[in-house]
């Protein structure tokens, strides 16, 4: 197998997952924590890093499990349950390892890890990867790009929301309402990137 074009395709998929097809702003995945944990830049950063890490790793794991276990056994439809169990188990494992070996990282990321299992972006990326039939290298690029895209979106949102704290917002619009409208504006801005990657 020639790896050259694979890697360049992985790179392109990665960039497009960050900008043109941002998993949060075009697919609405991971919206719950996005709305919930975007009040402060600091917490958003922690969660964002945790998402990048878990998303990339579970994309790899799920790819391997899907292609080496489920496909040979003809149990592709089982992926829904298996993927989420793998994600949950992986998160649990990371939590234990961090707790044992790196108290610093555990302090930084530990509290966010349990939230990640229910983050639909993680499962969503794995499912998209299967539907689009990515090869392993491309799937890794896609996982990383999706995580990075989510990270960028939540940090930008947290920054904006910190600025909004003292603004007067109509009562009914406070909280989720205004956050969603800002997210809409961000999605609009990100649509501007779609010219970056022209059809090849």
């Amino acid at each position, binding site marked *: 197998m020639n790896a050259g074009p694979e890697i360049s395709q992985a790179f392109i998929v990665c960039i497009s997952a960050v900008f043109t097809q941002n998993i949060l702003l075009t697919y609405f995945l991971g919206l719950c924590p996005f709305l919930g944990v975007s009040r402060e830049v600091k917490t958003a950063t922690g969660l964002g890093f945790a998402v990048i890490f878990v998303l990339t790793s579970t994309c790899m794991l799920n790819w391997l499990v899907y292609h080496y276990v489920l496909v040979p056994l003809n149990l592709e439809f089982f992926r829904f349950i298996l993927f989420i169990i793998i994600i949950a188990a992986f998160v649990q494992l990371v939590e234990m390892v961090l707790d044992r070996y790196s108290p610093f990282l555990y302090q930084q990321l530990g509290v966010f890890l349990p939230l990640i299992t229910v983050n*639909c972006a993680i499962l969503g990326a794995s499912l998209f990867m299967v*539907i689009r039939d990515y090869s392993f290298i491309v799937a890794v690029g896609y996982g990383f790009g999706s995580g990075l895209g989510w990270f960028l979106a939540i940090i930008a949102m947290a920054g904006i929301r910190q600025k909004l704290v003292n603004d007067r917002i109509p009562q009914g619009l406070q909280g*989720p309402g205004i956050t*969603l409208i800002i*997210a809409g504006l961000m*999605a609009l801005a990100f649509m501007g990137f779609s010219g970056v990657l022209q059809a090849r």
Partner: protein
Amino acid sequence: MAFGVCSNEWGGPDTVNKKPDARKIIIDGLWRNNPVFKQVLGICSTLAVTNLVLNTVVMCVALIFTLSLSAATVSLLRKFTPRNIRMMIETLIIGFYVIIVDLVLKAYWPEMSTNLGPYVGLIITNCIVMGRCEAYGNTNPPGPAFLDGFFNALGYSFILLIIATIRELLGMGTVLGYPMPYFSGPYWDKWIIMVAPPGAFFMLGVVTWIFRSIEIRREHNTK
């Protein structure tokens, strides 16, 4: 797995351990504790398909099916399930119903199955399903749990259908694929933005705003 961030971030009242009362369950699910504008839960998996009414309808039916039945099943097993593996069992049960929906769609409506793509599978991580199983199914008998799941899903569906109808009408001039007078005519410049992702965010934001304002006014008046 924790739902702290999902469930009470915006402070919706919870219905744990209340005496089951069908009327209350219905009103809570549809309005007072509405999953979308009150709890702001689980919009991720469905928002993406709200640019077409038909896709939304199918997705909502799938959600109603999954949510009501898995809440009932969780509640049936609540006396036997050990607490420490409760979450795993709930995921398993939800996953089971989701796979059934996915298989039925693949076999009998393949076009719809490809249209919805991965979003059917994403019902598993839809916080509202897990949230209702946790908050209600776990502590109440199967009958009320089923009702609670059903009306929560219905409350969720009606908001999404409003969003989908407006998006499809303004964005494409059709509803359910049928051209609408005026909107499909030459005088209506189609708002492509409504069909694109930002349209969903704007619509959901505006709908949340409107319904919350109504709710705030109502509470204000009753006080």
